[in-house]
């Protein structure tokens, strides 16, 4: 019922700030879209244009096939959940939930039924007569959610709804939001700067940078094939290692060191992306030499911070792994990411060369070493 089409939308604030530029997103009915990006990238602005709290400078937004650029917020059939909850402080929880329905002329019996249902779903029944100030942060957040769901709108809009909660509550509320959305099947747009929240909630992620879309895709697709160095460093924790590298005759050099890696790419400089969790330790044979500077134990994971070819690198290993004295690193060929040095855009290497990779790499690397005169 409610597909949302955002077509070439831009926001230019008075004073000429271009907060959102040419954004195109086609959101399917029932889809959970997460807008993610660093502070100031225009996530809230985009969401608020859909809500009607900001005017749309350019482009158009339609909800369920109806263009809503000039429609009042109350008539757009959306409900919004705010970061600081924005509950009406002078109204009881019941009245907070009922307010939007009452203003739309919903019959009293129906309001009661819907509020009761929402209160049951969100376990708010004991608090219906309380004022918001007598509730904990988590309970307030539920009321804010309840206020959205009683309306049964075409779309939910969330602007960082969990960022005022403590870490533990955030995780459990995250799960609840996901379940609730799946159960109700309401199209949702969710804004966050927390990449973990984005990964776990989204059907599709929209990574924004400086008001532009950097990449749209399913969370794992974005994780495995980041479209740019920006996305690569933003999605995933710890952030992807990005190293300056040189490709010479199919071999890869990191700094002035042979890496033992190969790629079917033209000669030249590239940015090499290596996820910490994809790197493996090897004790013998070829591999990138790695010297550890310090170790972070996270419990489930152990992060080795060190240098590879003169560049900082993080490796994630299992905590019960014995660390050999002389460490070398290796990585599966399909886990390598390459990005253009100038634009930061992803480069796809061609299919692996026919000749045995091991040999080719070694010759190529030693030649490169000599030619480049390291």
């Amino acid at each position, binding site marked *: 019922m409610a597909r949302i089409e955002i077509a070439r939308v831009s926001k230019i604030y008075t004073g000429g700030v271009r907060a959102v530029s040419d954004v195109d997103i086609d959101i399917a009915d029932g889809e959970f879209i997460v807008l993610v990006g660093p502070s100031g990238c225009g996530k809230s602005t985009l969401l608020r244009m859909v809500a009607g709290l900001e005017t749309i400078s350019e482009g158009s937004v339609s909800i369920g096939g109806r263009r809503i650029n000039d429609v009042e917020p109350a*008539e757009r059939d959306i409900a919004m959940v705010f970061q600081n909850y924005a509950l009406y402080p002078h109204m009881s929880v019941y009245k907070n939930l009922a307010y939007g329905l009452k203003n739309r002329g919903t019959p009293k019996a129906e309001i009661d039924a819907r509020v009761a249902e929402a209160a049951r779903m969100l376990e708010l029944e004991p608090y219906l007569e309380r004022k918001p100030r007598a509730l904990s942060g988590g309970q307030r957040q539920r009321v804010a959610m309840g206020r959205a769901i009683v309306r049964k709108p075409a779309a939910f809009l969330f602007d960082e709804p969990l960022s005022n909660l403590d870490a533990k509550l955030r995780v459990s509320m995250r799960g609840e939001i996901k379940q609730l959305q799946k159960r109700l099947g309401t199209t949702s747009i969710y804004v966050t700067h927390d990449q973990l929240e984005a990964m776990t909630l989204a059907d599709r992620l929209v990574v924004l940078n400086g008001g532009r879309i950097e990449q749209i895709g399913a969370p794992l697709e974005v994780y495995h094939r980041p479209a740019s160095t920006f996305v690569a460093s933003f999605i995933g924790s710890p952030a992807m290692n990005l190293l300056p590298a040189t490709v010479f005759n199919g071999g890869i050099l990191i700094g002035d060191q042979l890496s033992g890696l190969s790629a079917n790419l033209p000669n030249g400089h590239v940015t090499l992306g290596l996820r910490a969790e994809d790197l493996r330790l090897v004790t013998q044979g070829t591999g990138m030499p790695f010297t550890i500077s310090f170790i972070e134990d996270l419990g489930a994971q152990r992060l080795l911070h060190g240098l590879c070819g003169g560049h900082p690198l993080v490796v994630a290993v299992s905590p019960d792994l014995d660390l050999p004295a002389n460490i070398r690193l290796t990585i599966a060929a399909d886990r390598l990411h390459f990005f253009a040095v100038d634009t930061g855009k992803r480069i796809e290497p061609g299919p692996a060369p026919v000749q045995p990779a091991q040999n080719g790499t070694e010759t190529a690397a030693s030649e490169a070493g000599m030619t480049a005169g390291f």
Partner: protein
Amino acid sequence: MKRVQFNNRFLPYLFLLPQMAVIVIFFYWPSIQAIQSSFYIEDPFGFGSTFVGLRNYHDALFGGDYLNIAVFTVWFTIVVTVLSLSIGLLLAVKADAILRGASAYKTALIAVYAVAPPAAGLIGSMFFDQHIGPFVKLVSYFGWDMKVGVNYYDTAFAMIFISVWKQIPYNFIFCLSGLQGIPVSVREAATIDCRSGFRRFWTVILPLLSPTAFFLLIINMTYSLFDTFGIVDTVVKDKAANNPVTLVYKIYLDGFRGNDLGGSSAQSVILMIVVFVLTIFQFRFLERRVHYG
């Protein structure tokens, strides 16, 4: 709330002393004097006084035009409070819509407050001057032959007009800062929940403004009852009799013009009791409906 610890336990009282002294000297002391002298009749030439019990009260309540003036005062207070509060609020709501975030305009508007009150009484009475008053001239085109100081109702009109006008900036500023104190996101949530701006105002904005409104209600009533003395004086001074005056002005007239100190003391005690009861009433019954954020 931050708690400050004093090393010396008398130090806090020392800090309070000037304020307490002002209250005692200018409020409690005269009040006690008034209560005392309300039971005496003072010799007009200052040769002592005679205890007369409640006679001054009896004379005040049932003598002359006291009740007429009391009725006028009630009307005057209600009209001035309601008008100045609602006009101030209306202007604040209009300004608030434009001012969101633009603090330069805000400062410019608030500066009016610093100018208006002291000049208001004088400017106001010139406004209604029989010969040069522009208002009098204006309404004469509509066939209203306005005679402030002569016609009872014209005088009442001028008094109310000036009193309201003088109080509007004060109400405007408090209402505006009250409005700006309402969280933006709460307003935005209301825009999504309720289409009608008018309804939003009654159901969300006004309730959230109620602490400010309650405070202003008390301030405005006190203003209408007492602080309008100067305005009443400018309008009716040296004019023919039969002009409307408020109770406070009558107290002044009887005490300082009529030299009836006992009588005017009795009147001020009555007024004191009325204000006292009114204030208790406001706090008991109105404040319950006030939402403090």
